[in-house]
C-alpha cells in the first residue's frame, strides 16, 4: 500500500539526492565535463566563513518566522472559528496572499518599500520610509514580514480546523466550573491543539529551510549577505558562480540539518501511535 508513494519518492527524490551527494565530490561548472575532486569541495565549503553565517541567517529566519506566525495564526484561527457573520468574508480575504506567486509578491513589496515611491511616501508616514532593503536588520525583518504575510492565513486555516474539532462540551463544562475566557484558552484550547501546533510548526520550520523563491527575488540575499539563507547560498554558488560541487555539498548539509530538525520535532510531538483525543 505504501509502494506507489515509495516508488515515486525513490525515483524523483532519493535518486537525485544520491546524484547530489556524488556531485559534492566532484568539480563541475555546469557546462563541461564532470571531474572527480575528492574532498576539496567539502574542505572549501567547511572552511568558508560564509557557511556559518548562512547557517545563522537560516536559523534566524526560521525561528523568527515561526515566532511571528504561530501566535498570530493561533489568534486569528481561533477567532475565525467563532460565529461572527463577517468571518466568512474575512477568511476569504485572508486567503488571497496564499494564491500569489513569489515573483508577484516580491515585485509588489519591492515597489511598496521604495523609499521614494512606496508605502511611506504614499501614505505620508515617515516611519514607513526607511532604507528597508538596504539595512541588514531591516531587510531581515522585511523577509520575515513578507513570509508571514503570505503564510499566516494558511496556518490560521489549520488552527481554525483544529479548534472546530474541540467538543463544545469541554467549554461548557469549564464555563460551569467558572473558568474565564483566558483560562479556557490556556487550559482547553491550547492543549487540545497540541498536534495541530506540531503539524503547523513542522510545516513552518521545514518549509523555511528550503524557502528560496521569495528571498531570491526580494533581496537576492542582500544587502551584502544579510539575508543569505543556506538555500540561497547554495543556489548562488551553483548557478551563478558555476561551482556545482561546493553547491552540492551545501545541499547535503541542508538535508542533514533538515533531517535533524524533523526528527527533533517528531520526538517532541510524541512518536507514539496513540491518539491524544479524549475517548479514543
Amino acid at each position, binding site marked *: *500500500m505504501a*509502494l*506507489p508513494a515509495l516508488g515515486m519518492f525513490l525515483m524523483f527524490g532519493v535518486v537525485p539526492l544520491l546524484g547530489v551527494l556524488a556531485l559534492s565530490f566532484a568539480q563541475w*561548472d*555546469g*557546462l*563541461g*565535463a564532470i571531474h572527480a575532486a575528492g574532498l576539496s569541495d567539502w574542505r572549501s565549503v567547511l572552511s568558508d566563513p560564509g557557511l556559518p553565517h548562512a547557517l545563522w541567517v537560516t536559523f534566524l529566519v526560521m525561528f523568527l518566522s515561526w515566532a511571528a506566525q504561530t501566535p498570530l495564526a493561533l489568534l486569528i484561527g481561533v477567532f475565525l472559528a467563532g460565529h461572527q457573520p463577517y468571518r466568512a468574508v474575512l477568511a476569504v480575504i485572508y486567503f488571497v496572499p496564499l494564491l500569489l506567486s513569489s515573483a508577484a509578491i516580491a*515585485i509588489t513589496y*519591492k*515597489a511598496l*518599500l*521604495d*523609499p*521614494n*515611491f512606496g508605502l511611506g511616501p504614499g501614505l505620508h508616514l515617515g516611519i514607513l*520610509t*526607511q*532604507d*528597508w*532593503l*538596504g*539595512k541588514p536588520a531591516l531587510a531581515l525583518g522585511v523577509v520575515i514580514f513578507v513570509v508571514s504575510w503570505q503564510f499566516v492565513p494558511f496556518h490560521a486555516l489549520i488552527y481554525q480546523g483544529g479548534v472546530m474539532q474541540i467538543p463544545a462540551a469541554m467549554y461548557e463544562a469549564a464555563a460551569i466550573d467558572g473558568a474565564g475566557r483566558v483560562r479556557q484558552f490556556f487550559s482547553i484550547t491550547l492543549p487540545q491543539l497540541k498536534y495541530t501546533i506540531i503539524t503547523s510548526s513542522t510545516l513552518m520550520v521545514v518549509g523555511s529551510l528550503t524557502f528560496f523563491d521569495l528571498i531570491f527575488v526580494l*533581496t537576492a540575499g*542582500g*544587502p*551584502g*549577505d544579510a539575508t543569505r539563507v543556506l538555500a540561497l547560498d547554495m543556489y*548562488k554558488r551553483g*548557478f*551563478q*558562480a*558555476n*561551482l556545482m560541487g561546493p553547491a552540492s555539498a551545501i545541499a547535503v548539509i541542508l538535508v542533514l540539518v533538515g533531517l535533524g530538525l524533523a526528527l527533533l520535532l517528531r520526538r517532541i510531538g510524541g512518536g507514539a501511535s496513540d491518539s491524544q483525543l479524549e475517548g479514543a
Partner: protein
Amino acid sequence: MEAITTSRRNFLRLVGLGVPAAAALAACSGSTPSQTGAGGGSGGGAKGAATYWFLTGQPQQGIREDTVNRFNAANPKTKIATTEFQNDAYKQKIKTAIGAGKAPTLIWGWGGGGLKSYVDAGQVVDLSGWFGQHGDIKNRIFPSAFGAATVDGKIYAMPCETVTPIVLYWNKKVFDSMGAQPPQSWGDILDLVPKFNAKGIAPFSLGGQSRWTNMMWLEFLYDRIGGAEVFQNVFDGQKNAWSQPASIQALTECQKLVKANGFVKGFSSITADSNADQALLYTGKAAMMLHGAWTYGSMKSDGGDFVTGGHLGYMNFPPVDGGKGDPSDTVGNPGQYLSISSKASAAEQEIAKKFLSTTLLDDTEIQKWIASGNVPVVKGTRSKLAAVSDKTDAAWLTFVYDTSSKAGNFAQSWDQALPPTAAETLLDNIAKLFQLSISPQQFADNMNKVIGT
C-alpha cells in the same frame, strides 16, 4: 498475502489514474503552433531545425523575431525556431541546457567571462576562421565590440544588436533652477553635492539594490584615475591586481561620494529593474544619474515631456583631476553576442552561419534599431542617425555613436567580463563597499583572492 493483492491493486489504480491524466496532457501537447516562426519550437529536439533563444522584452524581442522571420521567409526549407525567456530565468536555463547537451543552435549572450566559460567547456564554435573568410562582415562591425567576443585570441561570437555605453545624465530643469553647471570634472561633482543636498534634491539617483548599478561608478573611476590598464590587469589575472594604488584610490574616492550623501537616501533599497531610479531623475527628485544608454527609451516613454521637451542632459563621465585615464574612454555593453553551439549538428551550424552572414544586422534590422532609439553595433550609421526625424532623438543617437566609436577604450561591464565565480564575489563586495561596511583595503583583499578563478 494481503500485501501482494493490495499492491497489485495499487498499481492498477495508479494506471487508472494515469490514463485520464495522460489524455489531458496529450490534449495539451497537441499545441497551437508557437508564434515564433517555425512550428513546434521545442528546443534542441527537432532534427535539423536550428534554434535560437533570447530574452523577452520590447522592443528588442520584436526586432529579433522580425529578423528571424525574414530569414525564414527567405529560407523556407531551413527555418530557425525561437524561444524567449526572462533575463534571470534565461541565465539559468541556458546553463542547464548547455550542461545537458540540449543547447540551442544560436546562443545569445553577453560575451566576456560567460563566453569564456562556454569556451572552456568546449561548447561553442570557433568563428575565427569564418570571420577570416567573411572579412566584409567583420569590418562592418565596431572593432571595440570584438573584445568581449574574443577568448585566447580566437573569436567565438558575433557581436550584434546595439551598443549601449554608460552615460552621465542630468536634469536640465533642476540645474537651471539652481543656476548650476553640469560637472566638468570629479572635483566639480564633489562640489555640487552639498549644493543639491541643501535644496533637498538628491545629487545622484542610484538603484543600489541591483548592485551592478553601483559597479558602473567604480568602472569609470578606475578608468579615469588609472587608465584602462588597471582593470585589464585584474582581467589578465595579475596577482594582487586589486591592490594597485589606482584601484585603492578609486575605491576611496567612491566611498567619499557615498559619505558625502552624494546618492539618494535609501539607495540600497531602490531597484533598477522597476525603473524607480530613472523616475527619480525625471521627476526632479534627483539631479543626475549614471546609467546605461538603454534608459533613454524608457525615460522618453515614461517621463512625460522630460525627454521630448529637451530637459534631459547627457555627457560622458568627466575626468578626475590628476588622473591618467583617457577622458574619451567609456564602459558599458559594447554589444550583444551570438555564439553557435558546438554540439549542434553540422546542418544546424550551417543554418546558423547563414543567418549570421545574411540576415543578421541587415539594413532592415539596422533601421529598426535606430527607430527604437538605439545605436546598432555597425559602422557608418552616423548619417542615418542624424537624419532621424525627431531632433532630440537624433542628437542623442549621434552622441551615443560618437562616444562609442571615438572611445579610446570601450570596457565591458565587469560583471560580464569576469568569470562567473569572480563576478559574484565582485558584486557582493561592491554592495558592501557602498554600504560602507568594508574598507577599500578589505575590498581589495577579498577580490584578490578570486583573481583568475
